[in-house]
């Protein structure tokens, strides 16, 4: 996920729509989920030159292996 700094997030949001300060405050906690999902998938991307190693995949809903 490209946007991690508060100032960049605010700048990006204001480019998209006429967001208020309240909207921004509601947006920040949601972006934690976006960040977690993006980071989890990025950490699991495997090279496509062979079979997927299932040992690297999660076995619980929290992502534990």
């Amino acid at each position, binding site marked *: *996920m490209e946007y991690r700094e508060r100032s960049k997030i605010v700048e990006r949001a204001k480019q998209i729509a006429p967001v208020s300060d309240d909207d921004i405050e*509601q*947006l920040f906690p949601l972006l934690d989920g*976006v960040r977690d999902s993006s980071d989890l*998938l990025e950490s699991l991307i495997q090279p496509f030159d062979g079979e997927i190693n299932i040992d690297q995949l999660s076995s619980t*809903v929290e992502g534990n292996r």
Partner: protein
Amino acid sequence: MTANVFTLTLAEQVKLVKSGQISVTELVQQHLIRISELNPTLNSFITVDENDALAQAAMLDSRLAAGEDPGPLTGATLGVKDSIPTKGLRTTDNSRLLENWIPKEDAKAVARIRQAGAVIIGKTNLNEFGWSRPSEHDLNPPPWNPWNPDRMSVGSSSGSGAACSVSMASATIGTDGGGSARLPAGAHNLYSIKPTHGLVSRLGMDHNGHSEISPLGRTALDTALMLESMAGFEPEDDMSWPAEVPAYSENLEVNVSGWRIGVPKNLIESAPNEPEILSCFEDFLSKLESLGIELVDVDIRGMAEARAANFIVLNSEAYQRHQKSLRTDWSKYGPITRVYLLQGAFL
């Protein structure tokens, strides 16, 4: 008039209508009374068109009187999620952006339901655009769960779940991208299924390719009858499944003794379930074993990654769909929905 037929299952209602023990008009009237009694407090329906429902009923009664068989859903009264277009019947998506939209055509699945003899009695409540979570700021206030009216009905097909569970309709139709029909089915003691992509055509729907039109019923048989009527090949739909629809309703009473069913216990126990839910699940597993089914512990890998991928795809699609109108009509969106939609811009 046969009293309280609205409490029966869809299959039982259709049987009574076809045998002439109750007319379609009488059945629709019973559901309209039920809606007038309960909807003011439960908010399950956004729009109910009494005149149109009674006109549909009169048409079906005429066909029955002429000796015709209108179809497997004859006389069943259905509530349709207000994100699914219905010809001549306001379809709002519970948003101020579509507050006055009256579609010129039915979605294909709705047209099929009508062809099967059903009556569309009204449009059921949902989270705005089937997204985010229910909010008092939506065009219509959220529906409440009849099993516990202190709680909102879970969505996004929340009104479909609530309306079906208290017999405001014979059954209902929702949509399901990430659980939007299965979750309300679970919270309202109903049956539902997210159909395989292409089984029920999405022609006439919006561009959210991950959301499937899904039946909700009070029994497995009702849900199977609904799915059979909605499913089928649509040549104009390049994603439609070109095969014969299985007779789901005829395969419910099979002998399951000797079946093996995998149970991902490790995954289930790692989820934050409430004790009552886990207890019900254990009872369910015991019931399966009592029927002669062998339960096998299986290790399913990659579900957390699947959930993350689903989250990213759904949010990206939702933002893409609303990108222009978020800029031009920001204030028309509910304050929660618009912020949820904005998430996808940061992926």
